[in-house]
């Protein structure tokens, strides 16, 4: 998409998100979670959101804070239940949020399909389980596959390590997780990064997300949260 905009504030970076949007939220637990963009989204006020993310919030921060603020109608994720997912658990048990559980790799691949112009794909994962119920199956070379559909976002909120002003991104260790996939799969992609370096300062061989995928970029201090406990 056209030129990446470097936003001055996180509020500017998330402006215009509409009620009812599908929002892809990066991160695996706390690693790679775009905390500042989520906080800005809470201030921005969009409601009735469908959130696609691996988890459904940890503790009181990030996605959990968005859930607590009552902005989320539905969560599509692979692993909502965690030792510290009490905000989601309470809303879910009270029937105040819908849940679609998707196998983790299928979640990633469905977003990749959206970003890659693939209309659907046959996956062997989940065949014969409750998560394939109602889905079309097909025998290919003696193996059974289930037809999976793309998941496309209106907005993606991701966190990366470093960017240049063209929107080229590099990540750090396992915080890379869903960021590169989500960056391909949403109409508007917003990335928070700890550092914006001049054009030419990122080795072209090491770019993970090329700037073509990134619409808005904003600098935000890294939060050094300690991650503990089982997923």
């Amino acid at each position, binding site marked *: 998409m056209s030129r990446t905009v470097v936003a001055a504030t996180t509020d500017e970076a998330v402006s215009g998100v509409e009620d009812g949007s599908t929002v892809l939220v990066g991160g*695996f*637990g*706390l*690693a*790679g979670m775009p905390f500042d963009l989520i906080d800005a989204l809470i201030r921005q006020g969009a409601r009735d959101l469908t959130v696609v993310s*691996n988890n459904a919030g940890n503790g009181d921060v990030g996605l959990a804070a968005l859930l607590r603020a009552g902005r989320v109608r539905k969560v599509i994720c*692979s*692993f*909502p*239940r*965690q030792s510290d*997912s009490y905000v*989601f*658990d309470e809303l*879910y*048990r009270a029937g105040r949020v819908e*849940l679609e*559980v*998707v*196998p*983790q*790799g*299928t*979640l*990633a*691949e469905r*977003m*990749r399909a959206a970003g890659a112009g693939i209309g659907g794909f046959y*996956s*062997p*994962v*989940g*065949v*014969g*389980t*409750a*998560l394939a119920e109602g889905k079309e199956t097909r025998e290919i070379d003696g193996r059974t596959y289930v037809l999976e559909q793309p998941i496309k976002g209106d907005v993606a909120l991701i966190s990366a*390590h470093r960017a240049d002003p063209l929107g080229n991104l590099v*990540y*750090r*260790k*396992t*915080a*890379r*997780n*869903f*960021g*590169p*996939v989500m960056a391909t799969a949403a109409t508007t992609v917003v990335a928070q990064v700890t550092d914006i370096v001049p054009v030419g300062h990122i080795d072209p061989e090491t770019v*993970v997300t090329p700037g073509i995928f990134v619409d808005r970029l904003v600098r935000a201090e890294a939060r*050094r*949260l*300690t*991650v*503990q*406990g*089982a*997923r």
Partner: protein
Amino acid sequence: MTTRVPERTDRGPLTTDELAARIARDIPVGSYVNLGIGQPTRIAEHLAADAGIVLHTENGMLGMGPAARGDEVDPDLTNAGKVPVTELPGAAYFHHADSFAMMRGGHLDVCVLGAFQVSHHGDLANWHTGDPDAVPAVGGAMDLAVGARRVLVMMKLFARDGTPKLVPACTYPLTGAACVHLLYTDHGVFEPGRDGVRVRETYGITVAELRERLAVTLVV
């Protein structure tokens, strides 16, 4: 009927650490391995340093090292259980679509998963108790169950109330059908199959006693 199955009745069932060590012994040199969250994680402590076994974590890394301690803790570097870990020389990072393509595509030699139940055909149930009040959560379990070339299960043979977890048919929702190659338990090692469950070895119990306590056909 005589049996040549090793029955270790001179001792009790394996402890979790002994079980982890037992599984570690069966993982071939040079394998690429995913150790599921929970007990299977402990297998890592029993892998020989010179065996060249490379650990995969589905959140995007090959060459995962031991748990991080003190200053090593980095919130950007965790395992699939979200526990801070370390990086070994020769590691590689990749994103989630690539990580699960690797799993689904049959590139991992071995994965070891925990389980609620395993059926005698090798069906696996490890993601949902079926309790309508429980929040369902699957993570990467289904991807691993279908994708790894060998799926090993590590679990206790009996639940706390004494009911067997090796069953004729899973009563909990399935993770994968006929996907378990070998089942490692505190009381023995089992190979599920079409004609019944082959007993490889037992600990603190005889095959005869297992036949009494399990409702599956045991083959020796």
